[in-house]
């Protein structure tokens, strides 16, 4: 099919969802490395405040400031680390790459509903990336107001000078536009393009997760867009929506308004990031336990419930802003409600494993890791959600530990699971399992050491986003732990190169993959590599749910493709 396609059309401005997915994957991996590098610099400063950055962390970049990370740079580092990891690494990898690659294949469609929009979405993201990267070359440096960019810090008056913050706002608006284009496409593709027989409750849970994420994106990205536009006007045109008091000569608005707008988007956003992982985990657990996902429908419904609840809990990020106690309690109640559906599907995961015939292939290892890290992350969320505890914990490293467990760790492992699992279909070869195992254990251990100890620090009162922790007497005794975390983080970083090496090396040297190496049921495994533009020679007819593993009616094998009628199989 389409041999005559130009290189241009095939690799650059491709309309094929699979190629666009790969483009997103490479973009995401690039930024993952970039963001990870910045994380190590942050860790260096926290462990060895104001000591020269060593050569292996590219110390020469800091020549201008005498080899050390100065306070402005430090603020820029954690701001850009957060921004990049959330919007330029997790979003492109989980949603951009796997949303694109997996949705049409798993629902039996030829492509996205709007392929041109899909391509534009990627290139808008590319443009956003250029704007973001350009801000590193500005004389005053990049944005420095945190990934949340609260005003007035993020404004010029009493805040951050220069154009970095402006570039940040523009880049984020562009990235948001790109996300919106993708989201609209995914939502519609799932609604309209499912193969005959593919009812909603026959869709793999991975599609459910990606679909619900896209719905949240379509609803809430415009909210942050509104906030960013107001912020931009405050910076550029002299409006004062978010300025108050002395900073707002004469008029004035209210900085808290921004916090509300930000978190009305921001809390759904954290679920936007985790929902694809939940879906992928639910699906892979079933594949590698060789039994149906326990409570498939319940899991899907729980995810839907969480989507609804996630839009009415934003206030839990603002307990300390002086909101009325009644409001605080209401937000606390709503937030704690989320733990009900969360626990239900969490137990569904465990019950999928229960008495399964577990195959610890590498995607399964990563999946199991998600269960562990998400358990810790979710449970620590309950402390944050409780007003009385949060008044103490807010803005400490405890929160940083919490969201790295829920967001960074879960999504990282979920992403590794997804890459290892779909690699054979994406690149036609298998990844080296031994390297992946080494990577897995190295990552799993060091990652827990990093993030768990962050919570210990926070519990002991260590604030987040402070430049030099050693300046505070009560933190001085904790500096040993800070150093330890930094060592662990360096180990964590080093292990990622094993995966990167495996990822690249296997693309050329890995053993050729069979059509269905994991013996999965879902439709993407019914097509040969390389999957042509258009995916299916004939649109499949779907008969079964995605998780008919070890069905006693099927003789001779413990799996049955969704497109094979059970009676006639085997």
């Amino acid at each position, binding site marked *: 099919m389409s041999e005559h396609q130009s290189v241009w059309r095939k690799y650059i401005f491709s309309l094929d969802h699979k190629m666009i997915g790969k483009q997103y994957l490479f973009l995401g991996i690039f930024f993952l490395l970039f963001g990870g590098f910045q994380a190590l610099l942050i860790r260096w400063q926290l462990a060895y405040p104001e000591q020269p950055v060593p050569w292996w962390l590219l110390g020469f970049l800091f020549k201008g400031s005498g080899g050390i990370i100065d306070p402005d740079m430090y603020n820029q580092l954690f701001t850009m680390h957060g921004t990049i990891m959330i919007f330029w690494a997790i979003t492109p990898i989980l949603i951009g790459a796997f949303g694109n690659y997996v949705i049409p294949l798993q629902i039996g469609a030829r492509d996205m*509903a709007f392929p041109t929009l899909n391509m534009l979405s990627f290139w808008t993201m590319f443009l956003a990336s250029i704007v973001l990267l350009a801000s590193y070359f500005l004389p005053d440096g990049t944005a420095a107001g945190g990934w949340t960019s609260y005003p007035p810090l993020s404004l010029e008056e009493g805040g951050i000078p220069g154009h970095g913050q402006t570039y940040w706002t523009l880049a984020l608006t562009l990235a948001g536009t790109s996300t919106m284009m993708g989201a609209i496409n995914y939502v519609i593709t799932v609604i*309209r393009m499912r193969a005959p027989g593919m009812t909603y409750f026959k869709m793999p849970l991975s599609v459910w997760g990606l679909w619900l994420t896209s719905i949240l994106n379509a609803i809430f990205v415009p909210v942050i867009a509104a906030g960013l536009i*107001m912020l931009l006007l405050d910076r550029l045109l002299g409006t*004062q929506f978010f300025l108050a008091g002395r900073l707002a000569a004469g008029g004035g608005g209210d900085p808290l308004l921004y916090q509300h707008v930000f978190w009305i988007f921001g809390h759904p956003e954290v679920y936007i990031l985790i929902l694809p992982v939940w879906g992928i985990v639910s699906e892979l657990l079933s594949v590698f336990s060789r039994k149906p996902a326990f409570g498939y429908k319940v899991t899907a419904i729980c995810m839907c419930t969480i989507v609804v609840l996630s839009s009415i809990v934003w206030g839990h990020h603002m307990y300390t802003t002086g909101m009325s106690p009644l409001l605080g309690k209401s937000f606390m109640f709503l937030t704690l409600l989320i733990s009900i559906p969360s626990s239900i599907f969490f137990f569904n995961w465990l019950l999928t494993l229960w008495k399964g015939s577990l195959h610890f292939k590498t995607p399964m290892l990563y999946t199991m890791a998600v269960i562990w890290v998400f358990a810790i992350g979710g449970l620590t969320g309950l402390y944050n959600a409780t007003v009385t505890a949060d008044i103490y914990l807010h803005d400490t490293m405890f929160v940083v530990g919490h969201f790295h467990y829920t967001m960074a760790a879960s999504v990282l492992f979920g992403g590794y699971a997804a890459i290892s699992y779909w690699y054979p279909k994406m690149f036609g070869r298998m990844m080296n399992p031994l390297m992946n195992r080494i990577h897995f254990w190295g990552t799993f251990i060091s990652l827990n050491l990093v993030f768990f100890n962050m919570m210990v620090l926070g519990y002991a009162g260590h604030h987040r986003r402070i430049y030099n922790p050693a300046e505070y007497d009560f933190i001085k005794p904790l500096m040993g732990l800070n150093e330890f975390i930094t060592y662990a983080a360096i180990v964590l970083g080093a292990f990622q190169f094993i995966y990167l090496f495996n990822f690249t090396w296997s693309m050329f040297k890995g053993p050729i993959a069979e059509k269905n190496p994991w013996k999965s049921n879902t439709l993407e495994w019914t097509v040969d590599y390389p999957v042509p533009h*258009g995916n299916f020679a004939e649109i499949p007819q779907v008969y079964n749910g995605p998780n008919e593993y070890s069905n006693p009616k099927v003789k001779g094998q413990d799996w049955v493709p969704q497109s094979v009628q059970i009676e006639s199989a085997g």
Partner: protein
Amino acid sequence: MKTMDSTVPIQCDENTSKLGIIILLGSITMLFITFLSTFGAMVAKELSYIKLSGTHQAIVVGNACLMIVSSLLFDSGFRQWQGTKSTRSHRFILSSHILGLVFLFGQITIWQILVSDGLQSGTNVLAGMTYLMAGAHGVHLLTGLVFVAWVWVQLYRGIPIKPLRFRLIGWYWHFLTGLWIILLSAILILIQI
């Protein structure tokens, strides 16, 4: 929308495109809901006040009526084109377009009048939000004007248009009318409080 590569048939039909527009309009609505809620919060917090004289209100409402008429004209144009494939339908689309343009210039003029009467966007956040909403609406209107102009050119030159495109552009246009009516009513009600 079709792929460039004609060897790949896409199962994208009319309903898919309609749904696409609906979700797009839904997202745009969310943008304005956020603006409006922020406006509401600013009113509730009594951050500033807007007093409009009777004349000002009349101008503002009158201008909005232009948009309603423009929408109605577009609709008649579409119906005529659909029914009898009337050759006159392009006149309706053209007048719809012109009214849209007049509305846009009206908005800008009103803005200038209000600013010169002391409603500065810098010192009065409610005024700032109002201008922001009108401006954001105007930007969407500008793209709408491009689409409507495109329809007019096709009709005028007698180039066939896909009925679906015509219809969806109409949806967008009516949406913009409805959006402004709702925004304006909300603003006028909220500033009375």
